[in-house]
């Protein structure tokens, strides 16, 4: 198992004061909190920082951790010493949702939880706790509905009292028209209560993977549609992909780059359904042969056009 240098993770000295550790934690937590951060690996970094803080903020855990010294050299296996933790009493900080590293679990896991008691699931006696998960779905799942294999990570307490994260694969019928941020509720798929009683529910929050063509905004879909300059200028009927198949789209004469056309009700099939917006992007033909060059030259000769007129030049 890998030794974790919690001081290094937090970026503090080994003799840092409690105030310095708290300050470092708050700064890092704001930087890497998955709800706030746009940093890469924010979630992994946030877990690491949370675990380090869990140990360093508690005088007992920190003192016990400090006894381990600097740990083995990089690449060496770490094993907790046989007399580990003797003489220290850990009061559990209360279990969090996230899972800890093996390193943390081997040092504080079972012991911390033994002290933490059973405050979870106490909010509705006789009924199991509700579970929550977030999944990334392809946009087609909501456009057309359909079954998807979802892999969830579920925290579980194993026989030794350690919090482990188990994989759970569920085959779920995705309701057509579900929007990002909404939940699929699977009744009875949450935690089982100790003893008799109804299991809790499983809430799966949905987010979408980027789609190669469409961008989503709530229930609306957006597509950038390339058009030729003459199609925009003179108007045309062009083919455009939509979630429900190819349609002929009428481009009004005098359109320009960025003109938005709305196809009502052709967005995500929620209730009410979203709209489908086509944003025109003018694509220029390459002037890479004599014929094309002559056509551009003829246009330049025929049109008294100054694209920089409103810049005053």
């Amino acid at each position, binding site marked *: 198992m890998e030794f974790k240098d919690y001081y290094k993770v937090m970026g503090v000295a080994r003799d840092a004061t409690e105030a310095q550790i708290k300050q470092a934690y*708050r700064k890092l*937590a*704001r930087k890497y*909190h998955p*709800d*706030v951060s746009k940093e890469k690996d924010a979630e992994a970094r*946030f877990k690491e920082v*949370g675990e380090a803080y869990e140990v360093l903020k508690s005088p007992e855990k920190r003192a016990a951790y400090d006894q381990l010294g600097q740990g083995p050299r990089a690449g060496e296996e770490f094993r907790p010493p046989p007399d580990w933790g003797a003489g220290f009493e850990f009061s559990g900080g209360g279990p*969090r949702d996230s899972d800890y590293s093996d390193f943390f679990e081997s040092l504080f896991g079972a012991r911390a939880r033994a002290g933490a008691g059973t405050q*979870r*699931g106490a*909010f*509705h006696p006789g*009924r199991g*706790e*509700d579970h*929550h998960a977030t999944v990334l779905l392809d946009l087609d799942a909501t456009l057309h509905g359909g*079954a998807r294999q979802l892999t969830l990570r579920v925290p579980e307490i194993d026989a030794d009292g350690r919090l482990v994260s188990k994989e*759970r*694969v*569920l*085959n*779920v*019928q995705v*309701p057509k*028209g*579900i*929007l990002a*941020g*909404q*939940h*699929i*509720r*699977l*009744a009875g*798929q949450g935690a089982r209560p100790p003893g008799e009683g109804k299991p809790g*529910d499983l*809430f*799966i*929050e949905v987010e979408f993977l980027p789609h190669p063509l469409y*961008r989503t*905004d709530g229930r609306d879909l*957006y597509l950038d549609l390339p058009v030729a300059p003459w199609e925009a200028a003179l108007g045309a009927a062009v083919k455009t992909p939509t979630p429900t198949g190819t349609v002929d789209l009428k481009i009004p004469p005098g359109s320009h780059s960025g003109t938005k056309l709305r196809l009502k009700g052709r967005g995500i099939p929620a*209730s009410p359904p979203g709209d489908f917006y086509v944003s025109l992007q003018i694509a220029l033909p390459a002037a890479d042969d004599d014929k094309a060059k002559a056509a551009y030259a003829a246009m330049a000769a025929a049109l008294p056009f100054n694209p920089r007129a409103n810049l005053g030049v």
Partner: protein
Amino acid sequence: MTSSEDQPLSGAIFEQSALLTVKDLSRMCAVDERHIVEFVEEGVLHAVEIKSTEWYFTGEALRRARLALRLERDLELNLAGVALALELMEELERLRRELEARR
């Protein structure tokens, strides 16, 4: 607790289901009812206007309440801080979408 391959589990879109009470939210978020009430008092959650002595929330309140709880716990924010963070996050989200639309 696993489903068989050929029989997919089906569930409804939670946000379209019935309105939620303080008790429902407390159970789903695994927090005290008092905590949910404080969220309302601080403007973190908004009860929908309904002629009744009890507060009701739309399904969207679940996501918001859970987000607020995560911010509270992980960033050690107080309620006013959570309310402010949520407002700023929403504003940021709106601006990001607008920026995206203008590209």
